[in-house]
């Protein structure tokens, strides 16, 4: 698949310093999307939240815009692909260089699922740290709202949030423990007026107030990946072996996965 130059969409021409050119692989959606961004050095909490919220937004029918970075970005887009949604990855390099390399497959999956990878840099432009903040203004530019899942006090996710505010977009943030450095950025955003995201259903309701009714009526999952196997056994009057056998059957059918002693209700592969 070769990068094609495309016209800069109207949505993107409204931001203060719009890109002058745009290359794309795949189909860039015409409706505004929802950006889901966060730290590259995510924790399992952030990853879980990104998977959960990415799936919810995809099921609601909005495109999910992100940066294809390690960590939160990749987890959110992986969830989108698995839920069969549309995802747009905005790169900070030419489209012939997917960075980081481990997300090449994810990029291909996004395009394969009807989404796109785009860049304002011509093919042949190498990835470089100074291009990533500029890339972030395109992410927020394509979105009606930016959801920051996990962010420390420094890092690209907060830059994206600031750019979003400058562009007049809504910012939402996932709260975290107050002693968790990787959530300090999100908590700060909430203190400064960002909508706290309380769960998948709450997020969809907030987004509907910003963007109007969701295009799809699919119900977002109302529980985060969850209960421990020991709890399931304690809550059942069947022998341990039977419960374990039942879980194994469900796992084979693909309706569930057991990870770290927890039954995770939606089947997600690692991102």
């Amino acid at each position, binding site marked *: 698949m070769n990068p094609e130059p495309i016209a800069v969409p109207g949505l993107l021409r409204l931001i203060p310093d719009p890109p002058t050119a745009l290359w794309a692989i795949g189909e860039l959606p015409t409706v505004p999307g929802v950006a889901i961004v966060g730290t590259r050095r995510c924790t*399992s909490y952030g990853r879980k939240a990104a998977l959960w919220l990415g799936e919810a937004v995809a099921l609601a029918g909005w495109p999910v815009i992100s940066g294809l970075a390690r960590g939160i970005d990749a987890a959110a887009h992986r969830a989108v692909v698995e839920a069969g949604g549309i995802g747009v990855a905005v790169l900070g390099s030419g489209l012939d260089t997917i960075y980081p390399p481990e997300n090449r497959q994810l990029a291909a999956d996004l395009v394969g699922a009807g989404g796109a990878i785009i860049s304002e840099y011509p093919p042949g432009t190498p990835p470089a740290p100074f291009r990533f903040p500029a890339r972030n203004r395109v992410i927020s530019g394509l979105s009606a709202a930016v959801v920051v899942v996990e962010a420390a006090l420094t890092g690209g996710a907060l830059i994206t949030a600031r750019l979003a505010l400058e562009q007049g977009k809504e910012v939402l943030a996932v709260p975290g423990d107050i002693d968790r450095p990787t959530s300090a950025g999100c908590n700060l955003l909430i203190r400064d007026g960002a909508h706290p995201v309380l769960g998948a259903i709450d997020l969809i309701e907030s987004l509907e107030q910003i963007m109007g009714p969701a295009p799809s009526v699919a119900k977002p999952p109302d529980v985060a990946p969850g209960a421990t196997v020991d*709890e399931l056994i*304690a809550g059942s009057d069947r022998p*341990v072996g039977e419960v374990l*056998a039942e879980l*194994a059957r469900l796992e084979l059918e693909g309706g569930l996965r057991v990870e*770290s002693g927890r039954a995770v209700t939606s089947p997600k592969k690692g991102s």
Partner: protein
Amino acid sequence: MAMVGAEPRPVRIEVHVGKPRDRFTLVGLPDTAVREAKDRVRAAIVSTGKDFPHRLVTVNLAPANLPKAGSDYDLPIALGVLAAAGELPKNSSRVVAAGELSLDGSVRRSRTAIGAALLAARYGLPCVVADDDAGIAARVPGAAVYPVATLAEAMAVVSGVRQPREPVELPAEVNPQWEDMADVRGQPVARRALEIAAAGSHHLLMVGSPGAGKTMLARRLPGILPPLNAGQAVEVACLWSAADRPRRFSTAPPFRAPHHSASAASIVGGGHGNPVPGELSLAHHGVLFMDELGEFPPHLLNSLRQPIEEGTVTIARRGSAVTFPARAQVVAASNPCPCGFRGDRARGCRCTESALERYRRRLSGPFLDRFDIRVFVGAPDPEALLGPPGEASLPVAERVLAARQLQYQRGVVNGHMARADLDRQPLDPGARNLLHRGVEAGLLTGRGADRVRRVARTIADLAGVDLVGESHVAEALAYRSGL
């Protein structure tokens, strides 16, 4: 006798007394300790009041090409010299002897007493050992053990002048007080996994946060394992004496828990000079517990792989190789991630994805594939901790023994079943179908499928069922995922 690995080989003492000349030579690949026997033997014979022959004395330890080590040849060499010098009557009995001589003629304990007793039993000869060794040597089935305190007594016993004494009975075996399963509250999955592992002698991996009770569970495994039979107890005793460890002659399965900083030689076996059995062999017929599996150096885990699979350790030494039995059940515990709290609801994991990935890479792969059963051990529910005690070890041990007896009837313990043994175990159509789907879904490799079948066999044995059914395979599958 010489020890080749943990296996005793007979060594025949040949003595020639030649021309009058004060010379004493010792041949037959003796090491330094054996060569020094010349001086101890000479002094002990003189101290006993006998003349050391003033002739050319040549002692050959046959077979001459087998290396001999240690001071246990003192007593047999002295008896041989005395016999050749005519100090013992011609009709003296042939004996298997092992013991170090002190300069005053008293007999000291030897490292190879159990091996000597095994050989003596095999050849139908009496076994002459020091008093200190007699008790344990007498435990070897079929061995006639003559305890002796001095060289003079040994001469008297061998020549039939004096009736041999009865060996001092070892004090009645005190079964080690294993901690009880009742202390484990909650943890239904881990308890079940431990029971299955015990019943089928399956290698078990427990992954979970610090303090969740992995070590506690592992320490309770020997208490629910079936006791060793006499033959197994002798094998274990032989290995322990070959490693020069404290005396052990017990039907309780051994439990070894080497620290992750221990050297590869001390765990696998080897060492300088004469190879000695490592922790894996000391845990033969018992449990080798590896806490903090991720902390063990990768090269060590690699060198453990084959011995764990085959049940033996082979140590190659300049042209020759020594094999130690090492049929230990491996129980390993590991944190789920570098910070240890992955999967822990209360504390939550603080590891970055990249750190997690590195940790998984270190732990994953061929070594982890050796574990038939893998379980996640989460922090116990606070309510369960305050609740009633769990089921005690005794009823669990009874179920384990019942399941094990079904396996003994088939001739092989489930954890040791080879492909051919597995193929003799019929699966019902539902079980076969489920296994098939597991392989198709990419959840199982071929080796993984074999492991599931072994564990499913054990689950069926615990249920007292002859045919391995769908539910048994399904449960066995649950012990392959979930980490």
